[in-house]
């Protein structure tokens, strides 16, 4: 039992348990706060993979922007607990079949996955030059079109959100 395996198993087990906690909460704010804890653990998993840029981005974007936006909307809507309609529907046969199909495909892929590749970005290179610097080099050399597309993808929903949520109903 070496130390990295111990830490990784803590992070993995905690992620799975916390995501099970998340999907079973009745209160929305509780679910969002447990999701915040889950994102902290996933950020710790990214640190194992020499992807410290993504650990930062996970905390900044997911925890700092998306979850705060979700909490803001929950508090803005002021959703009441509707007792006459249950929040949870039963897991019917087709849904369970769909989940089993997805898990079966994933199990087949996992069984067949065998990687023995050495690429351009070895672990020593990522340790020597930082992850963010290499990612910037990739984004401005060979992946420049995805960067432009990402800009458009972030620009259009801004207009959409302003147009949709800025409408006042005629009261």
């Amino acid at each position: 039992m070496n130390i990295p395996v111990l830490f990784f198993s803590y992070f993995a087990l905690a992620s799975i348990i916390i995501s099970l906690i998340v999907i079973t909460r009745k209160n929305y704010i509780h679910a969002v706060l447990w999701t915040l804890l889950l994102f902290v653990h996933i950020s710790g998993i990214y640190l194992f993979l020499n992807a410290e840029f993504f650990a930062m981005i996970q905390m900044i974007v997911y925890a700092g922007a998306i979850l705060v936006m979700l909490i803001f909307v929950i508090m803005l809507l002021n959703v009441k607990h509707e007792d006459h309609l249950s929040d949870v529907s039963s897991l019917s046969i087709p849904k369970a079949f769909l989940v089993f199909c997805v898990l079966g495909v994933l199990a087949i892929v996992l069984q067949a996955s065998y990687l023995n590749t050495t690429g351009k970005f070895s672990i020593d290179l990522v340790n020597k030059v930082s992850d963010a610097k290499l990612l910037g080099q990739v984004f401005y050399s060979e992946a420049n079109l995805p960067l432009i597309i990402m800009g458009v993808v972030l620009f259009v929903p801004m207009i959409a959100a302003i147009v949709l949520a800025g409408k006042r109903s005629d009261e």
Partner: protein
Amino acid sequence: MVPLNAYLILAASIFAIGLIGFMTRRSIIMMLLCVELMLNAVNITLISLSHYMQDFMGQVIALLIIANAGAGMATGLALLINAYRLKKTVKIDLFKDMRG
């Protein structure tokens, strides 16, 4: 050294939990939260494969997925605000107008 399959099994488990949550919860807020769970599972898969294949395109696609997650979350929450103004509820079972 943790093997690759540990990361893949972790991501598959989180994806399956998010899928079950998406299909069993009936409020739009919880469904959006479960979609976020599934996107995080996909990100774990892409970044672990990028680390083990020593190639950076996985991280590029993961950053695109994060941008798309933020965009979809913003649009979905704006739609949710409008739907709540129409129906005064968040439960999707009560949106029965266009059943046909």
